[in-house]
């Protein structure tokens, strides 16, 4: 599908190289406030490690080093737990890289592939941890969920393995920084399976019909919403049935008024969820719901339906991540056509607080490796995975997964190219609303957003409930 280009030439336009090294949340502000010379990534990682009690987990300390310079073709049956079927999404890539590794490098490598629904992933992993039976490699969630596993020494120190196997450069440095920040450790304990950017997708035809331009500032954004509503068009499709579709909107405004580190500050206890800016952000989303910008029954609309509403012209704007391009590239779903949907970043309120080059980004689900099952064969596979996943993902799906790649992205669909360009343009990033929250706090935040939207919970009470959950979890 993709032509392989001259390695040196294509590497120069690799997003990994082009992208900022200080991708993490609010590096500019952090540097200013800390007054030091650290990058935002360094600052945030250090702070997080300290807050975790400074106890560096034992995992990986006894990792097996390579016994030879080349893969010794050790016999290995790798047990893999995934949330994607082998013919879907990242499941295609995992299967393809296993097959490729077996064919090109190690014929003694085999694998068992088990799928669990994403909703049940945490429960499944918790059960496997309890029975000390984690599979060799498993899909998990970045951020807080893996912290407990890291602290309990259940996960392989991926940084150490990559160093031992001399393939540290295979990963996109931005992805590495993001993973470190999310786990609050100085090393990474997971491999990325995505490099996503989030923002507002909009239906160009509906914008034109209502005489709207793409907004750059929040005031312009609000004007667009009023115009769309006035033209009889539902301004925003929000998948509040899935909850995170709504919390992302809240986070967008919060970041623009309180800075990209707002949620991290609240999690560290530096600020409270009940502070003015947090309540103001919640109030904004409630006001939008009251104004009817989300249409009727917003809590009954899931993200798939909301995306479909955008593509079929039933709503003008939809907040989602770059993974939405798989829907946009599907002509049977996207009635707006190959160029009918556009993308814009979260509009800016005050560029000194958070500017337009700052995007919401994440690494999607991640891959972790069981420390208990780790052996040299796994290490060699990890090396192959890290060195080849970038090219494979670009060749098969035209997507960036957090690894360096050497093949060209030319020929990608307009939507895929749009995402690649956006990622390249990003100079800093902020995480999603629940990224820093523990499970309990996260559930309260997600559950409460629905009653916030219906007006059954006030903005103050919503934020108070999150603060109470946070207090309880301490």
């Amino acid at each position, binding site marked *: 599908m993709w032509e392989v280009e001259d390695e040196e030439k294509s590497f120069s336009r690799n997003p990994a190289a082009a992208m900022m090294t200080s991708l993490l949340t609010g590096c500019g502000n952090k540097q200013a406030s800390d007054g030091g010379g650290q990058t935002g990534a360094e600052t945030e990682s250090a702070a997080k490690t300290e807050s975790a009690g400074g106890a560096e987990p034992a995992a990986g300390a006894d990792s097996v080093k390579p016994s030879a310079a080349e893969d010794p073709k050790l016999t290995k049956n790798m047990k893999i737990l995934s949330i994607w079927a082998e013919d879907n999404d990242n499941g295609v890539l995992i299967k393809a890289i296993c097959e490729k590794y077996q064919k090109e490098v190690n014929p003694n490598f085999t694998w068992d592939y088990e799928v669990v629904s994403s909703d049940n992933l*945490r*429960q499944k992993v*918790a*059960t496997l*941890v*309890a*029975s*000390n039976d984690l599979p060799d490699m498993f899909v998990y969630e970045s951020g807080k969920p893996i912290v*407990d*596993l890291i*602290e*309990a020494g*259940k996960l392989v120190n991926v940084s150490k393995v990559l160093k031992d196997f001399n393939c540290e450069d295979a990963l996109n440095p931005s992805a590495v920084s993001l993973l470190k920040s999310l786990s609050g450790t100085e090393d990474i304990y997971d491999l990325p399976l995505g490099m996503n950017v989030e923002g507002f997708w909009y239906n160009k035809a509906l914008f034109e019909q209502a005489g709207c331009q793409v907004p750059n500032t929040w005031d312009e954004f609000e004007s667009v919403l009023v115009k769309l509503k006035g033209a009889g068009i539902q301004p925003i499709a929000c998948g509040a*049935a899935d*909850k995170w579709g709504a919390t992302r909107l809240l986070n967008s405004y919060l970041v623009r008024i309180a800075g990209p580190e707002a949620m991290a500050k609240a999690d560290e206890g530096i600020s409270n969820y009940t502070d003015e800016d947090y309540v103001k952000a919640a109030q904004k989303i409630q006001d939008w719901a009251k104004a009817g910008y989300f*249409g*009727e*029954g*917003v*809590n*009954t*609309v899931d993200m798939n*339906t909301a995306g*479909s*509403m955008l593509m079929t012209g*039933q709503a003008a704007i939809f907040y989602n991540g770059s993974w939405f391009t798989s829907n946009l590239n599907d002509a049977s779903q996207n009635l707006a056509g190959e160029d009918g949907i556009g993308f814009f970043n979260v509009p800016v309120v005050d560029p000194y607080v958070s500017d337009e080059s700052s995007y919401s980004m994440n690494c999607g689900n991640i891959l972790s490796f069981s420390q208990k099952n780790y052996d040299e064969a796994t290490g060699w596979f990890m090396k192959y995975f890290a060195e080849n996943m970038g090219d494979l993902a670009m060749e098969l799906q035209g997507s960036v997964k957090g690894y360096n790649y050497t093949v060209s992205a030319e020929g990608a669909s307009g939507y895929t190219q749009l995402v690649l360009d956006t990622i390249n343009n990003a100079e800093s990033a902020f995480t999603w609303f629940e990224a820093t929250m*523990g*499970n*309990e706090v996260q*559930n*309260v935040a997600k*559950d*409460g957003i*629905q*009653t916030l*939207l*219906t007006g*059954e*919970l006030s903005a103050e009470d919503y934020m108070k409930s999150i603060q*109470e959950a946070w207090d309880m979890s301490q």
Partner: protein
Amino acid sequence: MKKVLENKTAIAIFVLPALIVYSVIVILPVIWSLYYSFYSGSPGLKWEFCGFDNFLRLFGDSNFKASMAVNLKYISIVMLGQVGMGLLLALLFYFWLKRFKNVIRTLVFFPVVLPTVAVGQLFQKIYEIQPNYGLLNSLLDTLGLTGLVQPWIGQASTALGSLCVMDIWVAMGFYAVIFYGALLDIPGDVIEAAKIDGAGGLQLFRHILAPLLHAMIITCLIFSFSGTVKMFESATALTNGGPGAATRSLSMYMYNVSFTYNKVGYGSVVALFIFMLCVVGSSIIRKFDVKE
């Protein structure tokens, strides 16, 4: 037979296999839960003895209280709805439906065999408001009752009621069949005699049918109670506990606490509470089963 029943060894041989199975799959997990309830964290992850902390936390946990309130409301409405509607349907089959009664009985019983997830999806469509009106809102709109068009499962005020309607619809056929069988067991001459004595519909029910169906009503109430106290799959399929915590039951909360929050110890305390609720609730219902 009398000889066999006097032989304690024979009794033990009959009882032991079932007792062992019952102990392993019912009593042992309860004891296990009790043991877990004195620990914090999750087995394998921060698993530490915490004494009675989990029990004390229960009393100050607003989420637990909210879930219990939802559960109690759900039990009251659905239990009475399922058994009441079942009884009414059975009376309808017995006294009024002369033609097509087999077809109608089959239709009423049909939802019982449907998978819960399928029923949840079906009702999501019935209650739908966006992007298109579902059956209910379309009907209301067509009848000109636009004021009643609303997101039935998208707002806390109507979500629990909507869920109850679904669960009553699903199970009422089951109870109707049970009551119909019980009605068939009542000798026809008793009913005939009451009618000859001038008993009207209500009098016939109150003085003849209700006393004769008493034991069956109690049994059905206990069935329904034990089915509703564990409220989980239908709420998960229809609303996933939302909006907010409007339809989140104790079982769902226990599941979240144990497997999402990784607090198996505290989840075990909630599980024990559900167990106690079951025991106490069933005992209260049995109090009405007084032999005259």
